[in-house]
């Protein structure tokens, strides 16, 4: 084969090909059997890729087929209605989810990035309490979402914070749920920045914080952004903890952060899917489409921002 068609850089490819030619001239070329195995394996890989792609496509197509009868502007601007589900809309849920996500982002970006910076660059990993923090964050990443709901009800809605059943409480609960995602992704991003960048800055006399802020964080931005996007995606779709901290299923007024009731898209969809009337099922599928739309737009913003600031070392 003339090229290796692999991610190795061109010069290394050339070197490897040259050495390969030498080896082949001494030991003979690869057998037909091997070539068949190669092709078969490539086929298996492509099958895996196809399965993954088809699953996403299937979910999207199913949502469109089930929900398209209700794809009209009413879906976005109308209030929910149990009397006339044919014209009911998701407006308070869309606003509720938006307010929730804004609160989540406001919490996880500073806290998440700060934690990652501390753990990667400032903490002395030999100390037991820093290892404990590390184990902690990894463990939190796997705690079921419903347990965060229990936590939120006990300590955020009631208990020490006593915020009541308001958007801020929901935001905080979901933020704690997705915080580990941001921390872990930010750590990766910071780790991927070559240490020479940081060391060079320090050698030139900058303090650690100055170097981190101006050099490392700017360089790690795309990776941090990925983490935030994944966290936001998870946060939008979580219904279980919100059900426990007070997201209601019927509200017709706009949410406020510190007072009043609120709803969220996944909560309403889950509720509608369980009703007997067929119109509610269609409404649920349409709601899924709205959520997917929201998700896609956030993802596209992220991809655009990432493409603008990506760097190769």
């Amino acid at each position, binding site marked *: 084969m003339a090229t290796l068609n692999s991610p190795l850089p061109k010069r290394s490819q050339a070197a490897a090909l040259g050495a390969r030619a030498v080896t082949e001239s001494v030991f003979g070329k690869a057998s037909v059997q091997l070539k068949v195995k190669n092709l078969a394996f490539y086929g298996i890989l492509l099958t895996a890729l196809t399965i993954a792609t088809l699953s996403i496509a299937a979910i999207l197509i199913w949502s469109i087929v089930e929900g398209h009868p209700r794809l009209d502007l009413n879906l976005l601007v109308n209030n929910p209605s149990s009397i006339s589900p044919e014209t009911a809309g998701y407006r308070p849920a869309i606003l509720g989810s938006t307010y929730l996500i804004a609160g989540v982002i406001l919490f996880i970006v500073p806290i998440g990035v700060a934690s990652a910076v501390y753990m990667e660059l400032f903490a002395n990993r030999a100390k037991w309490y820093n290892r404990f923090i590390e184990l902690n964050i990894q463990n939190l990443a796997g705690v079921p979402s*419903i347990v965060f709901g229990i936590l939120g009800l006990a300590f955020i809605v009631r208990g020490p914070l006593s915020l009541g059943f308001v958007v801020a409480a929901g935001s905080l609960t979901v933020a704690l749920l997705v915080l580990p995602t941001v921390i872990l992704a930010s750590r990766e991003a910071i780790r991927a920045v070559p240490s020479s960048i940081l060391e060079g800055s320090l050698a030139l006399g900058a303090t650690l914080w100055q170097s981190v802020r101006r050099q490392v964080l700017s360089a790690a931005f795309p990776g941090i952004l990925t983490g935030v996007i994944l966290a936001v995606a998870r946060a939008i779709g979580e219904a279980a903890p919100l059900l426990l901290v007070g997201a209601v299923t019927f509200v017709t007024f706009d949410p406020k952060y510190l007072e009043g009731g609120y709803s969220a898209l996944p909560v309403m969809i889950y509720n509608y899917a369980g009703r007997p009337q067929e119109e509610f099922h269609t409404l649920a599928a349409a709601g899924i489409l709205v959520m997917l739309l929201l998700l896609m737009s956030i993802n596209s913003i992220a991809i655009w921002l990432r493409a603008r600031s990506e760097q190769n070392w």
Partner: protein
Amino acid sequence: MSSSMVTARSGDANFPSRLRAESPRYGEKIIKALLATAAAISVVTTVSIVISLLGPSISFFQDPAVTLREFFTGTQWAPSLANPSFGVLPIVVGTLMVVSFALIVAIPLGILLSIYLSEYAPKRVRKVVKPLLEVLEGLPTVAIGLFTFFWLMPTIVKLTPFLPWAGPFSIGVAGIAVGLVIIPLVSSVSDDAMRSVPRGLREGAYALGASKFEVSLKVVLPAAISGIIAAIVLGASRAVGETMVVMLVAGAGNPNLSFDPTKGIQTMTAFIGGRATGDIATGTLDYNTIFAVGSLLFFMTLAMNILAIKLVKRYREVYD
């Protein structure tokens, strides 16, 4: 996310003192304290979770109707019946079955995808496939649950009439759906692990005449095995905690112990989810089962995470 997130980097993070600034600016100390506080929030979270779970759990176990022995070894879980049984094994088995089916789906697909992404895919394809996987990762679980219940499950039932399907629920299919949910996680962590294998190993193998198939499976895969194991354990951990999909697809089964994947069986998370939004009076023994099962879940995932860290430390190949 990458394999290194479960490893501790060798050496410590303090930089050689000759690279530090001469005068310690007190702003730096304050900043370090602020950053440490942010990191400590995760500790506060864990402590709060433990407190909110343990209190009612203790009162649950103190009740004379419950014995620790029955809880951990009993095979009938029916806390609301007039003659209640508190053996937790049926729902633990439910959770384990979901995890098994999820891993059966996610391990091959996830690893194959990561091999494709790191060894085979040209840059343009990678630029498309990676965001695609991020979309799959971001799909709301309620959407995947409804899709599985209304389309995937009936389709599978139609395609396999020889299996003893009964009723609209199946824990096997729920497991498959959860597998779809964790594929992106497994694949991206494995992908990062494979990409951190040094080029030199691959180049050497190519130079010696190995084909891409041999390099991927015999050089890169073993080299990245610690990260791949970490990926699998992380995926399993996420599968244990998945609530919405199992609530919609796995149903609530039967109080008796069962291993049948074609039927509905309740998982620990579905139990908590249903209970917490159901009609049981709060404060009763029946209600406190939520906290007992919640504590069990918490410690299960903790044990899995510790296992992941230990496994990675044992098998990690150090290159730098």
